[in-house]
């Protein structure tokens, strides 16, 4: 199985682990991720303003490239996923926006045809948890792991359609498949305040601590996330339990972690 793959800029720099392990694990699980050529940064945040067109063009080009390759698109970073998926939704449902975008696209007209999977959806819907279980060589038995969804993966649900936005299970199910014990806590789908980290760091710290406290009270030993910004923000806010990328966790269980640790 082959998919177009969009890592995004953070995964090429500060969050290399998220990217490297995503590819390694995909290979173990029988999926080839083919990186899109010459991609540009998605912009990090989806501007909901209807009249912002230029800021969304890079995402449209990513989607168009996947379509040209005749492949579905896979993303890993929560923020990239949110931006690309919301852009695709706007291309499908906002005719005025789509026509404005297509004025920039020359012969590459695009109308939302590409299907997008987040890495988690790829595992759940394409690979299947059973296949993951088969491939686990280091079961993470006994580990109490708290899934941190944050806001970007689940909302707005009318666009993201990943899981129940209020009571998601997609990461918990993966944690179970890896042999560990998921810790369910109330603030796993609340915002860590990542986007205001630069603008008002005290607010970001406050919000992160609410999440960390909630997870720790529920007995978490590790927090797992798919978002480099969440990881950074939780860590900077003084989180005293490890925060790891979900692909790192997956790599550990699939036994491919050491291979890439230089």
């Amino acid at each position, binding site marked *: 199985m082959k998919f177009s793959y969009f890592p995004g800029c953070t995964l090429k720099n500060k969050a290399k682990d998220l990217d490297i392990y995503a590819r390694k694990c995909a290979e173990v699980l029988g999926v080839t991720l083919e990186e899109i050529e010459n991609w540009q940064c998605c912009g990090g945040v989806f501007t909901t303003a209807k009249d912002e067109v230029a800021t969304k063009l890079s995402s449209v080009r990513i989607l168009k490239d996947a379509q040209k390759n005749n492949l579905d698109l896979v993303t890993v970073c929560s923020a990239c996923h949110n931006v690309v998926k919301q852009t695709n939704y706007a291309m499908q449902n906002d005719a005025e926006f789509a026509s404005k975008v297509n004025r920039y696209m020359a012969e590459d007209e695009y109308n939302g045809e590409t299907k997008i999977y987040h890495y988690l959806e790829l595992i759940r819907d394409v690979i299947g948890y059973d296949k993951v279980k088969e491939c686990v060589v280091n079961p993470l038995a006994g580990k109490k792991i708290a899934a941190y969804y944050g806001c970007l993966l689940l909302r707005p649900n*009318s666009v993201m359609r990943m899981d*129940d936005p*209020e*009571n998601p299970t997609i990461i918990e199910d993966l944690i179970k498949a890896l042999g560990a014990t998921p810790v*369910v806590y*109330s*603030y796993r789908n*609340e915002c860590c305040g990542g986007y205001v980290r630069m603008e008002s760091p005290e607010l970001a710290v406050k919000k992160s601590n609410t999440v960390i406290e*909630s997870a720790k*009270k529920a007995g978490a030993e590790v927090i797992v996330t798919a978002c480099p910004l969440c990881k950074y923000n939780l860590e900077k806010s003084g989180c005293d339990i490890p925060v790891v990328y979900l692909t790192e966790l997956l790599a550990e269980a699939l036994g491919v972690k050491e291979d890439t640790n230089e």
Partner: protein
Amino acid sequence: MQRIGVFVCWCGSNIAGTVDVVAVAEALKKEPGVVFSANYQYMCSQAGQDLIKQAVKEHNLTGIVVCSCSPRMHEATFRKTAAAAGLNPYMVEIANIREQCSWVHKEMPIGTEKAIILGKAAIAKVNLNVPLTPGESPVTKRALVIGGGIAGIQTALDIADAGFEVDIVEKKPTIGGKMAQLDKTFPTLDCAACILTPKMVDVAQNEKIRIFSYSEVTEVKGFVGNFDVKIKKKARYVKEELCTGCGACTEKCPMKKVPNDFNLNMDTKRAIYIPFAQAVPKVATIDPDYCNMLKNGKCGVCSKVCTAGAIDYTQKDEFIEEKYGAIVVATGFNPISMDKFDEFAYNQSKDVITSLEFERLTNAAGPTAGKLLRPSDGKHPEKIVFVQCVGSRCDACNEKGKEYCSKICCMYTAKHAMLTRDKYPDTDVTVFYIDVRTPGKNFDEFYRRAVEEYGVHYIKGMVGKVSPEGDKLMVQASDLLDNKQLKIEADLVVLAAAIEPDKSARPLATMLTASMDTNDFFTEAHPKLRPVESPTAGVFLSGACQGPKDIPETVAQAGAAASKVIGLLAKDKLTGNPCVAHSNELMCNGCSSCERVCPYGAITYEDKEFRMPDRTTQIRRIAVVNPAVCQGCGCCTVACPSGAMDLKGFASEQIMAEVDAICK
């Protein structure tokens, strides 16, 4: 040639607002056959009808065209008017210039032009109308009530009281419905069981009423006065006529882990059970999903302890076919699922419950014997938060809830809050509301009492998130009047879930060819004037299947539905539809094409002697339509290859004339 009178109705501004009624009347005056044309504000009013009657006399009219609302609304009215004026009622045609013209078009010239064309089509048809005389059909003097809640019970009792036989079909093992699950009722706080169970006993003892419990309607055929209904009596594996309801089996059954749906699965029952002590019929039922004997043939305890010998593991579903003159739908409501509202943590904490669950928790016959205890740890809650409007009043684009107000939640929440404070004065009770809606007799007084006498805190604002933290629930909410975000620690959160029609309603509506709205509530024949009748003749509506209702309203509507049924069953004969098929025997070649397509078996053949021009006789096979059986669908008219078959009132020539008029 007919002498036709055209009458154009304004319907106040409903028609006249978009259609130039004067111009329509003028234009139609010039049509062939038209000798009189008039317009009037309300043709359906007495004065409007008098206008028609007078015109018939003065102008010797032989046909009438009324350009007005849908014939589904007032065709019958104007036919009566025609009859009163001495015309055959079937010499009337309606041009629908309201629902299908003025209400769907916005511009006056367009509406007027279309109204004229529709009027021309009606005139073209009337020109070819012939007087028709309806046949008659007998009325089966028995009513069917579908649903055995308070709505169905009241309707059945009222019909039986008038001396007619009634059957109640209830899908659960007992009648009683939602009201049987309630503790107290607002605004008087009398106990639901105390006022409901005597009525259930009345039903059981009334010799005019039969109860088919644990049964479902599976097929409905026929028409008003003559419905043929198939009822499936599901196997309960207990012989109803032998079971004494002693309950020995329900105590001895070793399978104890069956979720008790009567208590909303907050406790368990046995695999053989009687839903509650006052169940009617008081007969045990075996749940085949849990009974070991039925699943793998190992057990048989209930059979051993039953001294009446009522247990029958081999029982099969049984089908009953019965005739009815009228059908009453009383399928009721359910609270919506809270699965999509997990910001309130319903699926994450046992201590977040719905109001109906709260009702069971405070009911003396409930899982806690009436003590208000938290489902998670059985502790007494010190602080309770009620959340109103969960899933009600949502935007149409919102995927989670309903657009309508569920109507009963404000009052039952005030009741719950008040009763809690009354029984447990140490318990702190907070209600989050958007609006408190109390339009009902003594309703607002009741709500004020909750606030002023019982000290319930009402806070204007919605709850945004409920977080289970340890054994507490953190409730994050708005206090709009104080412009604050509150974080309250609660022990129990109660959600006033929106209500929706029972899931059985839609397939039933299909069987009955009764119409529903987009929320699956049954549509009434007229929202103001015929609120308890379905547009389908002979089908009546009782209770919450038609829209959210409290108990007093339900009982009132149940009685109204019963009176409509009684009015129907009191008739010995119903005047039928004269628009039936008939065959022109001179053209019929006896090919049987029509017979094969007739869904009612209304067509038979006979050999008839014809005298030929040369004075010889010839015997030919010809089709004959039984007008009492024919329902007038007209399928045979199209199947007939020789054009012998035609439909009265909708003759091929007439429809063709309408086509011509429209296409001119």
